[in-house]
């Protein structure tokens, strides 16, 4: 496994860079050094531990290292820090003298200056050069299209599939971790202990604890056939009505639960709902997502235990009510790369509540495998600051316009 050192970046930039690199290259892993303050409380070069020194490539934010302005001394300190490793040097504005330094002229893959706001494509291209300079490049990766250079940025999107998390060291590390207890809503309760006392979730949990089929009778009219092992429930009630039902204080005690042997599931379904019972089947994860969404609506999820997780299936986004663009964004990211709650919050620090809600619902719906957060993820934390990561460009404008169009 090859490693990229992230130093001097804000928490958000580090987390975003970590995810971007994880989604793009299978053999690259990020090690993050937190920003460091000197005795005079100014940003300073951080100490490198053995893991940091072992990285083959560096991505450094010059301002975050206390090297915003170029000087002979700053250049010397930077070179000492980089120790002849290829580096992406992130800077702002006109570069405060760095773009006229010996490091910038002539341009070299060893020291590539990338001015903010930087795009994902710009970072990928620069990192590709750095990988080649470090002797790490794989020729088949991230190949520009030979015929249509004008569209190169879009067409040459990286071979991220090869970077899927289960092939990465991080994933292997997570796979070695004993999974959390994944019965019922236990992963949700492990991550959000205060939800253990939430009445509706307790009710949902009770339904999910058995993998055997069961018929739930609420009063004389409502019958819900549940088959957790096959991932569906059948009911004549809408999810809205079920949501209202679970809110009723008496429901948990008034439900009659009748086990249904597998051999009788079909006959019970026909008896309850008629021959076309299949049209009343709902994916269980969708139903649980909606019911849990109703249950946690308005609750403060900010007290959580950090856990690791990765989606094994996207939420059924087209069918979920009130799905938001960030739900889709988080789904895609969490399906590709193992995450922790902390790492997601770092990357989406302005959407903290949305992230926590998404995690809680994904766990509730049984869409993720989970494991205790290890020390590995803790390296990706540093003090938050101001910059806008991976933003702006023609491609960014295009994707934004496309998303706007899709949402309207």
């Amino acid at each position, binding site marked *: 496994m090859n490693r990229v050192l992230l130093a001097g970046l804000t928490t958000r930039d580090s987390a975003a860079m970590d*995810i*971007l690199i994880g*989604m793009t290259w299978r053999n690259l892993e990020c090690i993050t050094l937190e920003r460091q303050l000197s005795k005079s409380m100014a940003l300073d070069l951080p100490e490198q531990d053995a893991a940091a020194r072992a990285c083959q490539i560096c991505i450094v934010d010059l301002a975050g290292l206390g090297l915003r302005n170029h000087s002979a001394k700053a250049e010397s300190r930077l070179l000492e820090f980089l120790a002849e490793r290829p580096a992406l040097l992130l800077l702002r504005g006109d570069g405060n003298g760095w773009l006229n330094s010996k490091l910038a002229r002539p341009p070299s893959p060893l020291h590539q200056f990338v001015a903010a706001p930087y795009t*994902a494509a710009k970072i990928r291209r620069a990192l590709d050069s750095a990988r080649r300079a470090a002797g790490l490049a794989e020729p088949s990766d991230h*190949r520009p299209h030979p*015929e249509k250079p*004008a*569209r190169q940025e*879009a*067409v*040459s*999107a990286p*071979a*991220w*599939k*090869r970077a*899927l998390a*289960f*092939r990465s060291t991080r994933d292997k590390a997570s796979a070695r971790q004993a999974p959390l207890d994944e019965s019922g809503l236990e992963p949700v309760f492990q991550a959000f202990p205060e939800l253990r006392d939430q009445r509706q979730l307790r009710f949902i949990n009770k339904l999910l604890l058995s993998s055997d089929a069961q018929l739930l009778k609420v009063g004389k009219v409502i019958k819900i056939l549940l088959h957790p092992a*096959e*991932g*569906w429930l059948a009911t004549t009630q809408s999810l809205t009505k079920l949501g209202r039902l679970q809110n009723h204080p008496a429901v948990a005690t008034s439900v009659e639960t009748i086990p249904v042997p597998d051999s009788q599931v079909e006959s019970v379904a026909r008896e309850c709902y008629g021959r076309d019972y*299949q*049209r009343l*089947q*709902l*994916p*269980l994860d969708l139903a649980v997502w909606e019911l849990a969404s109703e249950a946690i609506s308005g609750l403060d999820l900010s007290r959580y235990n950090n856990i690791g997780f990765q*989606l*094994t*299936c*996207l*939420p*059924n*986004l*087209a*069918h979920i009510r009130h*799905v938001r*663009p960030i739900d*889709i*964004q988080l*789904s*895609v*990211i969490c*399906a*590709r790369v193992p995450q922790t709650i902390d790492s997601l919050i770092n*990357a989406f620090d302005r959407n903290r509540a949305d992230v926590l809600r998404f995690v809680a619902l994904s766990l509730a719906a049984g869409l993720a495998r989970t494991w205790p957060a290890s020390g590995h993820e803790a390296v990706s934390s540093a003090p938050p600051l101001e910059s806008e*990561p991976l933003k702006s460009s023609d*491609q*960014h*404008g*295009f*994707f*934004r*316009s*496309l*998303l706007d*169009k*899709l*949402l309207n």
Partner: protein
Amino acid sequence: MANIYKILFTGPVSSGKTTAIQSLSDIGVVHTEAAASDDVKTLKPTTTVAMDYGLMRLNNGDQVRLYGTPGQKRFDFMWDILARDALGLVLMLKADASSPVDDLRTYVGEFRELIDKTALVVGITHTDRATPEVRRRVANELVSMQLPPAVMDTDARNRTHVAALVNALVYSISPFL
């Protein structure tokens, strides 16, 4: 200057490719259909022989061309042509097909190069005629093929559903918009 991008829709016969394109397109979909003359006839009376074509005009002046591949294998020479320069691939699978997972393997195999360069999302259609398990099975198979489990149930007639698919495709390509 305005850029033109391309998104490719593929999948078996009557999986909803043409309908999905119609759901998003700003223009009437340009069909190149013909009367089906083989066993496809039992599924639908006409089928796409060269391609379907729709268009999205974006506020920034860019355009997205939506291409649908022909469903029948004997027209698969068109697949390579249509795949060139595509931004990503939307694969539509019928939940009530004899084996949606086999269909998945076939299409991923055919478009693997494009998928590796760009991104793939899978929409499962006709879900009212099959068990809800299909989505899980397809997700598991995607993972076993070392692809992200980017799959959701989709009604190709529903613009919101198809938009969610393309939305996921966009975030697969550029996760931090």
